[in-house]
């Protein structure tokens, strides 16, 4: 078997084939897409939840004001992703649809966990059907529902986990260790927004600007997800510089 190909390549031809060691290579390659994506992080605390994205410089001809990486899924849920942007966009649309349907059926906002679960049902199906490829994207959902502030990260395999803080994409390892050192559940909402921006500033090679950061937040009191304007982000960056936390 293998038609003269090395053993590893023989098992990544189709996603429905296990490698002898129990791995599914196509799904693992999808994780690689995520690892190459823009750094994206989510943090939740007693005060609410945030997502922060580092937008890397593309071609100077791209109008970056329009590049959107943070999405409002429903009034009380926001999302961002790392990986193949088109896959992410399609899944966010799916998530919006699921959230709408839940309001339609039950007259209540959907639970963030249930939304993450349903999106992962879609992702899982694309690891098992013939003729398709897995979604090369990990999505972070943040929100506030009846169970309090919520943060979920969904993986390309269809697994999802609840986190206090999570980083995906490029340098997510560095970001995670920075968050591990500085995270505390008792932080207020402005404090976790700052922590998010500070984390990005710490791992970024170039200096961060209000244009290179995108962020969204939701507070426990208001329960409405908001995408921050450039002015708001500038305010936080200026504060961080004044406090000497970033250069």
């Amino acid at each position, binding site marked *: 078997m293998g038609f003269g190909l090395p053993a590893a390549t023989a098992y990544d031809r189709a996603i429905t084939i296990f490698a002898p060691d129990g791995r599914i290579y196509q799904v693992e390659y999808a994780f690689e897409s995520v690892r190459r994506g823009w750094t994206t992080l989510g943090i939740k605390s007693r005060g609410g939840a945030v997502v922060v994205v580092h937008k890397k410089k593309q071609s100077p001809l791209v109008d970056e004001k329009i590049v959107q990486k943070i999405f409002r899924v429903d009034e009380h849920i926001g999302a961002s992703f790392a990986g193949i942007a088109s896959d992410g966009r399609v899944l966010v649309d799916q998530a919006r*649809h699921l959230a709408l349907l839940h309001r339609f059926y*039950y007259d209540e906002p959907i639970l963030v966990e249930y939304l993450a679960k349903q999106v992962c049902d879609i992702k899982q*199906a694309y690891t098992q059907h013939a003729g398709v490829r897995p979604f090369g994207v990990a999505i972070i959902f943040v929100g506030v529902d009846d169970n309090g502030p919520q943060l979920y990260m969904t993986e390309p395999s269809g697994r999802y986990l609840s986190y206090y803080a999570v980083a995906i994409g490029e340098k997510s390892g560095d970001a995670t260790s920075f968050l591990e050192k500085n995270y505390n559940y008792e932080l207020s909402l402005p404090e976790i927004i700052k922590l998010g921006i500070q984390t990005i500033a710490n791992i970024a090679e170039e200096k961060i600007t209000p244009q290179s950061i995108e962020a969204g937040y939701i507070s426990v009191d208001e329960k409405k997800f908001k995408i921050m304007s450039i002015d708001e982000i500038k305010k936080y960056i200026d504060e961080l510089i004044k406090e000497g936390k970033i250069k």
Partner: protein
Amino acid sequence: MYVGRGGYPKLLLYGEYRKDCLSPSLMSAMNLYTSNEDILTSNNVWWRDLEVLPGTIVGVRVNDGVVIGGEKRLTYNGFILSRNTRKVYPITDHVGVGFAGLMGDIEFLVKILKLEARNYRLQLNREIKPKGLAKILSIILYSYKLAPLLTEVIVGGYSSDGPQLFVLDPVGSLIEERYTALGSGGRVAIGYIEPRYKEDLDIRDAKELVINGIKTAIERDAVSGDGVDLLVITSEGYKLEEYLFKRESKV
């Protein structure tokens, strides 16, 4: 889930409204019940004659909970088929329904509602709220708009939103109320309940109000009678109580 040959869930397009109105688990159950095209196209259909639904059902919401009561008589063209039917049903520990109308439709709806409530419990890991269940019921009833299920429904229960009471007509209008009386005896019962209702009644007084309201209706409504079933829902859960009125013959 939705993913399969087609890929994604369908959008809510008008042409597919009825199909899309049903949650996935419900759709398979609904396939058992197909509507008759002849009924749909005729202007003079049998159920248009049934303007008032037989029976009496009363619901009262007070600060501590909700009391739903229904009498026990089942009639068919003026003949008493049964003196021992139940018209109030618990759906979960904290949500229940009461009906006036055709028993077949009632039993069908109770089965679907229990299915929906259990599905919700499994999927979301919490109990469905009265409002959520009432909304689902509203969607089901509306989906049968052209050949309606002949029922008027009270949905009541207790959740983190406090005690709540909803009223639905045969095509699914969804109205929140503090007290209500439905069915052929409802017009009599409401006259008893309305002047006596207060939001701060305790549960014992609310039960008495419901029983007396139904007793008043039974005196003047021929298709209601024989006893009262009470469904009492508080923060602690539900309780079902039965009171039989059958009089012994003195001859």
